[in-house]
């Protein structure tokens, strides 16, 4: 691999990894606040891409309102998911909650397939179709948007969680729901907000990604899984670690495909993230065993 190629694969890895990072952030926020792994997380990426396309193309809205509206609708769907499926399941076990969110993912995907069909769609680029040259690699403007949006979202989230009342309340719930309740934080409201926030993050990833990589009703499955691995690298606790994890997976996948040798071919691309997941879990198993709440 020449150095030009290396930079090219590196940039596309960072771009793809940014999407994983946004999905991973969603997993992390929900898990921290509610101790639930939301397997429907990837579907919100799909919803972001598909809804923004529908508003732009079928309704004929300008791009910016179409994007903002699609993020809002995704957040609303996240709220509905929490209120109807999660909150109604009282005293549910870990396994029950996992299956409920998997059921929700299948349901959302199925509805999307019925509403929009099975074709791939491509919403317009944010700032036109074009590339610029950087260290011998060609970078699409949209890739720059994706990376920039991810960086901005990460920083904003960090600031919000550190300096706003709501962010601190969410953080408090993550550290100890009981103690948070004692100082008057409503854990259920925080759980609702975490689902809406995660859905919105997924949708942001979807609207940013769809112009470059296209979207269809079924893109959520793999993206959800990669985001999940990103969050697992961060131990489902640290937001920054989830972002770093997402970008790492993107880069490793991209470089491995670039190497095109033995097991590192595009055929096994999706297995790479999973192997990383297993290795991380096993390395950290003694630490994880302590922090996992029983049951």
């Amino acid at each position, binding site marked *: 691999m020449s150095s030009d190629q290396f930079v090219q694969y590196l940039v596309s890895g960072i771009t793809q990894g940014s999407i994983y990072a946004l999905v991973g952030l969603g997993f992390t926020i929900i898990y921290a606040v509610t101790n639930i*792994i939301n397997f429907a997380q990837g579907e919100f990426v799909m919803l972001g891409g598909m809804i923004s396309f529908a508003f732009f193309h079928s309704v004929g809205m300008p791009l910016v309102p179409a994007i903002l509206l699609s993020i809002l609708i995704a957040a609303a769907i996240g709220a509905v998911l929490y209120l109807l499926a999660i909150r109604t399941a009282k005293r549910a076990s*870990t*396994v029950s909650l996992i*299956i409920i969110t998997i059921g*929700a993912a*299948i349901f959302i995907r199925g509805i999307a397939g*019925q509403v929009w069909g099975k074709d791939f769609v491509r919403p317009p680029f944010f700032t036109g179709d074009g590339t610029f040259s950087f260290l011998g690699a060609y970078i699409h403007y949209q890739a720059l948007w994706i990376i920039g949006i991810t960086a901005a979202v990460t920083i904003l989230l960090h600031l919000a969680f550190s300096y706003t009342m709501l962010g601190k309340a969410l953080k408090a719930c993550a550290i100890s729901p009981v103690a948070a309740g004692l100082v008057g934080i409503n854990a259920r409201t925080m759980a609702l907000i975490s689902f809406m926030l995660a859905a919105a993050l997924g949708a942001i990833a979807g609207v940013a990604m769809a112009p470059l990589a296209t979207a269809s009703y079924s893109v959520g499955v793999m993206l959800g899984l990669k985001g999940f691995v990103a969050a697992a690298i961060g131990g489902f606790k640290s937001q920054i670690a989830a972002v770093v994890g997402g970008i790492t997976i993107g880069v490793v996948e991209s470089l491995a495909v670039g190497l095109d040798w033995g097991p590192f071919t595009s055929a096994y691309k999706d297995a790479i993230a999973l192997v990383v*997941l297993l290795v991380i879990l096993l390395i950290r198993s*003694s630490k994880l065993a302590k922090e996992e709440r029983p049951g």
Partner: protein
Amino acid sequence: MWSVVKGRWHWGAIALMLAILFSVPFDWFLGEYTTLAIFIGINTIVTVGLCLLMGYTGQVSLGQAAFYGLGAYISAILSKTYDVNPWLAMFTAAVTTGAFAYVIGYPIFRLRGNYLAMATLGLGMILYILFRQMAQYTGGPDGMAGIPYLSVGGFAFDTPFRRYFLVWGFCLSILLISQNIVNSRTGRALRAIHGSEAAAESVGINVAQFKVKIFVLSAVYASLAGSLWVHHLRFVSPQPFDFLASVVIVVMAVIGGLASIWGAIFGAATIRILSDEVLLRFGEWDVIIYGLILMLVMIFIPEGLFVRLKKIYEWLRFKYAQKRAEP
């Protein structure tokens, strides 16, 4: 209250169930559903393994379909590509899958709860990707056809009628073995682990070893089911062993009531009939309804449909007994 049901009634119910099971493949009864019944039997075998692991030992596995697929593929490749006797292929598949589960069992069962779910999920998906991508051995996404039937001497299990008895013979034997395990010293150890690992450890139960043992057993069950599946269909492709398949196995176990060996038949039958007979009528809406059912079952009857029905039955019997006791 359970003792009321035991005794006379208990044996009567078992005899009736066996009579019904025996009659299913005959044309005068449910002959047209023989193939469906074969699949129910195969699914029951996988489900029982998961019931032992999840219901009795309290450990999650979201990758059970991978062991199922491993059994299916090893059987298929050995018996078709290498002309190995199908019975020997089936045996080799079970031993290999069990050995594989043993090797990965020790590291994986250091994890608990959500993390264990994740690790087993990842493992399942890696194997699924291998089934798809190692096309020179597995036939890739298109799968491989022309796998031989099982046979004894000159008697081949080449009709659904014959295979029904083969599969259900296996299934009932496995159910009986599992029932015995549950009622034995091992079963009590497993329930102790489910109750509290620390307490189990403190009375001298080797927790890690028991978890791995039962994981291996569930993997061997899944492998046997996979072998029966390929020698029944004579065709194997990766799709029936994907992540959704693992979820479906969990759902079967849950509907049957996790800590209920005989509930596994009920769980497997419910899901199988639902997906093969009922949902087909809804055309493309089938997955949507399926997702909805997953959510509704887990929200409203997380202890399982079978257990719920059993409770209602016991309650009715109790009321009946009360009425008779009144003067």
